[in-house]
């Protein structure tokens, strides 16, 4: 979103290196993410785009051998600082995974999970409201409102993924990270999610990793192209797809490799 023609930067990554043990997975990544826009990260498999995404909510902490160097500023605060509270960080930065991963609990409990952990709702009524609005925003409410207390694992794949989106937005995150959210879904469910992403960007900054260049072109305003752990090029989606500066980007987008 531009205020008075000035780009509002939400996330600023500076010289990010990531290592898995001794193997370096990301080299010197510097990337600015615009607020209330969709940024797509594209590139061939194993290029490090998912790794970069996982740096943004420090999900790489979960992997023992993974270490991250460099600065990632979110609202001008370096999340790689020792003083960063990971729990608060992940409250602000939600994440949706490649494979729908609803908890083996009821739909209601799935959505109320985050608010319960962060103590957001003061009363049962408030929680009900949060669950309802989250499901509505995830365009799932109409389909499930009569079976909120059935297990979330009983939904179809597309519904499960929207449930995971509802779960992610239940704590009103500022940023939503999506790691190939449609790769396990059929075209109809994919279209629904893409529509949803467009809707969600009004309130959230969205970063999406995708293998489908068509999807990147459809949903994103900005695109970054990763190759072999390096950020080759980034800029507006229009420019990357129509008139890339780098030869590699052009080759990838025209399908010559990857």
């Amino acid at each position, binding site marked *: 979103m531009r205020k008075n023609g000035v780009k509002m930067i939400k996330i600023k990554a500076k010289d990010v290196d990531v290592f898995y043990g001794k193997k370096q997975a990301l080299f010197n990544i510097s990337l600015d993410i615009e607020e209330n826009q969709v940024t797509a990260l594209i590139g061939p498999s194993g290029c490090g785009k998912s790794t970069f995404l996982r740096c943004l*909510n420090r*999900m790489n902490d*979960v992997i*023992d051998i993974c270490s991250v160097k460099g600065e990632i500023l979110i609202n001008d605060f370096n999340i790689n600082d020792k003083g960063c509270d*990971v*729990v*608060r*960080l*992940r*409250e602000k930065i*939600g*994440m949706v*995974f490649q*494979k729908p*991963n*609803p*908890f*083996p*609990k009821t739909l209601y409990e799935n959505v109320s*999970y*985050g608010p319960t*952990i*962060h103590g957001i709702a003061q009363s049962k009524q408030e929680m009900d409201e949060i669950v309802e609005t989250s499901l509505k925003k995830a365009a799932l409410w109409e389909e499930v409102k009569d079976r909120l207390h059935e297990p979330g*694992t009983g939904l179809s794949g597309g519904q499960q993924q929207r449930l*995971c989106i509802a*779960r*992610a937005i239940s*704590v009103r995150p500022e940023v939503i990270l999506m790691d190939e959210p449609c790769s396990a879904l059929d075209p109809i469910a994919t279209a629904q999610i893409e529509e949803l992403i467009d809707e969600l960007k009004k309130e959230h900054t969205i970063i999406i990793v995708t293998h489908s260049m068509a999807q990147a072109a459809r949903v994103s305003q900005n695109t970054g192209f990763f190759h072999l752990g390096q950020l080759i090029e980034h800029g507006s989606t229009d420019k990357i797809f129509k008139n890339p500066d780098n030869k590699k980007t052009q080759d990838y987008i025209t399908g010559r490799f990857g």
Partner: protein
Amino acid sequence: MNLILFTFIVLLGFTSYYFGRKKAYTIQSTKKRLTALPQFYGYYLAIWCAIPAFIIFSLWAIFEPSIVKLLILSDYSNQGYLDDELNLIYEKTKALSRGQFTGEITPFIEASAEKYLSLRSIAQSSKVVIVLSAIIASVAYAYKRISSNSRTREPVEKFLNAVLFTASLAAILTTVGIVFSLIFQTIDFFKVIPLFDFVFGTHWYPAKAFVRDSSEALDPTMYSDTFGAVPIFAGTFFIAFIAMCVAIPIGLMSGIYLAEYASIKVRQYAKPLIEILAGIPTVVYGFFAALTVGPFLKELGTSMGLEVSAESALAAGGVMGIMIIPFISSLSDDVITSVPQSLRDGSYAMGATKSETIKRVIFPAALPGIVGSILLGVSRAIGETMIVVMASGLAANLTLNPLESTSTITAQIVVILIGDQAFGDPKTQAAFALGMSLFLVTLCLNIVALRVVKRYREKYE
């Protein structure tokens, strides 16, 4: 003799494998395509060697003794012997032929013994001849028959199928046999002792049955108030309860630690170390409980002014609990580890801490498997014998005081069956009745446990 023959047949089997394969290679070298890999031709011939040998051996084992007996006893027919006497004569003959007969040797029996020996040697040598010629004939027949397009793969696969089926059948039949032997003895027991007295009687004193003079007729009334199983059932469940109080919390927590908190390095060493506990023989646990824990508890209790029996239920149950820890810890570690990583990621990404994730997501997801592991632990606790025999005493007290001694089903079975015992005696049969009830309890527990575990599996596969 049989051993040599058997070794020889095995060698023949290898040889026919070799020839079958060789023939296949020869066919292959003429650029013909075989219907199966050359090994299959070899296996096929080996099977043609094994099957006739097996059939002849079994027939021999079934019929040879009765035929020899018939031939020997034919000399004694028409002499007015009764069946029992004939059997006795045959046994004497056999004993004499082995040189183990000590009684009076009559010329008749001596002659029979000689005849017996000669019959046996004839049988033996004809067996060798028949087996070997049958094998050679069948292998030769098969060898001639195999060609580039003969089907060898299917028979070999079918044969393997049959062998594996026989193996599992043997296991199943054994189980059925054991259960039936339990059932019949149990039924006999309940003919003397009413079921009601057994299930609801509160006094267990089988030693009373010893006092009976064997010449006296069996008098059911004198057994009333002797075989009341309530105290030992109560003791069994009580000790199992104490054991689970130790095993569940420690096992579960160590399982969670291993699965979620321990680093790869720690896990690598800690898991085998904990599993060593499962490898300690229960006898060792038994004397640990009887000689170390029991006296220690007694001293500790005495210093606090409590009256503690040296053979307390607490000592036995506690040590039994330690024995069960590795089962629960290892099984629950496995179920927790098999909860998909994506669920953990989902929870962490919502900002949940490790303990919140475990409590709210992983534990509920793994709960069915954990319950299954606990039930398996319980059935082990109930079936455990050695620790109880050594550490908890043999007197069947009906008590809920963990500091007193009590006894269990398994311990009582041991008490009853140690030393001399008469078959058909209610005291001996009581052991079968106890065994039967123990079997039923653990069977139910295992069924429930397997059901629970299965339902869990269906969820993620």
